[in-house]
């Protein structure tokens, strides 16, 4: 995980930025720092597992605004907000908008690094789920219309007889469709197939 992930730091204060960079590097993580939200949007690599350490208060584009922009761009990234002293309302706002966590300055290195690790782990999981979903979606897309109909009814727990009756085709034909569906979807069992259908919902 460590080699293939990156911690982004966006903070307009040069000293804080530099110190965060150093602290995170001390944990063997790779870091990329940006002085503004604009720089980050232009410079980060959405393909890598990552987390974003984001200063909540910045001129021009604030941390909260960057969070909104990323959501709007459908670029999920666990965001750890760094807030100033006693800035509860903004932290609440950030959490409601889906922030991973928030840290109040100044913070302990262990707290920060723990949170970063959790966030990256979370991102990897999310990315994994996304990939899985994309793969299932791709497989389901290869089904014919009739196969998709049968798939949905099978996933709903119907017996072949019931499906045949409902669709007005023979049970033998249904069996053929089911075999094709199992093959196309890469399912080993009926239980597998039901699970894949669940994921697609």
């Amino acid at each position, binding site marked *: 995980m460590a080699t293939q992930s990156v911690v982004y730091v966006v903070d307009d204060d040069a*000293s804080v930025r530099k110190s965060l960079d*150093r602290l995170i590097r001390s944990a063997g993580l790779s870091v990329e720092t940006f002085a503004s939200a604009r720089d980050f949007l232009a410079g980060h690599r959405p393909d890598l597992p990552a987390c974003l350490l984001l200063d909540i208060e910045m001129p021009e584009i604030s941390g909260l605004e960057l969070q909104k922009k990323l959501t709007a761009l459908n670029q999920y990234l666990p965001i750890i907000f760094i807030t100033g002293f006693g800035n509860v309302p903004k932290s609440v706002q950030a959490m409601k908008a889906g922030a991973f966590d928030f840290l109040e300055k100044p913070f302990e290195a262990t707290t920060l690094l723990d949170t970063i690790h959790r966030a990256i782990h979370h991102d990897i999981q999310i990315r994994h789920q996304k990939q899985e979903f994309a793969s299932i979606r791709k497989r389901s897309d290869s089904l014919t219309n009739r196969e998709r109909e049968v798939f949905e009814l099978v996933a709903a727990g119907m017996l072949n007889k019931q499906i045949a009756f409902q669709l007005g085709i023979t049970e033998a034909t249904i069996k053929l469709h089911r075999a094709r569906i199992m093959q196309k979807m890469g399912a080993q069992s009926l239980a597998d197939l039901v699970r894949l259908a669940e994921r697609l919902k």
Partner: protein
Amino acid sequence: MKIKELKESGQECKQSVVETREHLPTPDAIPERTQTAEALFHERERLAAIINGTNVGTWEWNIQTGETIFNNRWAEIIGYTLDELAPVSIETWMKFAHPDDLQLSSELLERHFRGDLDYYECESRMKHRSGDWVWVLDRGKVASWTEDGKPLMMFGTHLDLTARKQAEEVLRQSEELHRTTLQTAMDGFWMADTQGRLLEVNETYSRMSGYSLEELRAMCIPDLEVVETATDTAAHMQKVMAQGEDRFETRHRRKDGSIFPIEISVQYRPIGGGRMVAFLRDITEHKLTEQTLRRQREELSHVGRLATVGEFAASIAHEIHQPLTAILNNAQAAQRFLSAEKPEIAEVQEAIQDIIADDRRAAEVIRHLRLFLKREEADRTLLDINGIIGEVLTMLHGELQDRNVLVTPDLNPGLPHVQGGRVELQQVLMNLILNGCDAMIGIDDDKQRRIRIETSVTEPDSITIAVQDHGTGLGAKEINRVFEHFYTTKRDGLGIGLPISRSIIATHGGRIWAANNPDGGATFYFTLPIAEKSL
């Protein structure tokens, strides 16, 4: 002349006077007179005319017998004719004369008879027919003496002094009124000559200064004046003489050595060799009130400043949190680099360097905060704003070079001084210049990254300083709120911001505002009142 002759001629003379007054004969009516008699007649007529012309009453008195002869004018002065008074004697005089004056008159006569006085002269009152007293100047001289040296015949005149006495009385009353006015005046009063010697002083000034009137009348202005030297006072008096009057504030020293503030209104009158007439007002109370008001204003302004502190306390906390956060991060990073299997000394060294820099930065923020909160009246000295701008530009030299910003000062060389705190005004200028730099961060063209600082006298009593940038300018909302809401942009260096600048300018009695330039960018203006001494 022998006594006998005098007596005879005197007798004759007075008879003639009486006659001539009553029935004036002409020389033609008496052709039998000899030439000598005729000459005598002319002589008499001449004397009579003179007496008539001088409009005096005459008297002749035989001191030994008490017989007297008066002329008509003598009776007329007291409202009678001679006939109405007849028969006359020295008793007639004594009857009409004021008893007090009669006493004085007798004494003076005695002295004349003894030879102490060459002639007798006495101002005395006589009872007029109307009941009023009239003043007469009674003068006379003994003309003949008895064989045994006693005064015999005395001749004299009465001159009516009533009109003069009345005029004198009016003048005396008027003077008394003036004196009373001056003595009872709330203000002190002086009259001095052109050498500064006090000629007249009133009770009020005597009370103010603690000196008695006698002491003051022996003093000169420089004995009392504290602010001006004797030379200054002499020059000041020349000025008053030239312009006729002056009004000014100064301080005087009391007899007990204490000093009090005083306001003087002085006029020069070119009478009697030149007179300085001055009214002096003790303004101790006034000054105290002024001080109290100023202190109250300062307290209010401090409350205002504290409120402003509350307004952006969070941002100041933020300013301090930034370096503290960085220090903690660096320290913990250093710890981790040291405890690694292969300690990375270079990283640790860099971390420590940053820790030092950030610690200094935090200290700087606190120093500025303390400066801002400082309650005591800031050092208010006469300052040359152009000089302060020069100082600030020197201080910011490196920063401006790093940021590639060109500052062009357009300073009015004849700028009057202002009164204020040097450090505070430096802070305002730094804030505005650095704000301008920040506003121009996005500009690529080096030639466009410039700030113009202009100083000018745009109002009669204040100067205006303008800091003009070519940056992004201000939004419509920002222009009005930029001073209200401190929105930290966490600049390196100072960066406590516009509300503090506003607070500083307000305590200096000036204003600060911002406006967009027609050709882009914004200009921040502030005014400072011209120091009184420069006006």
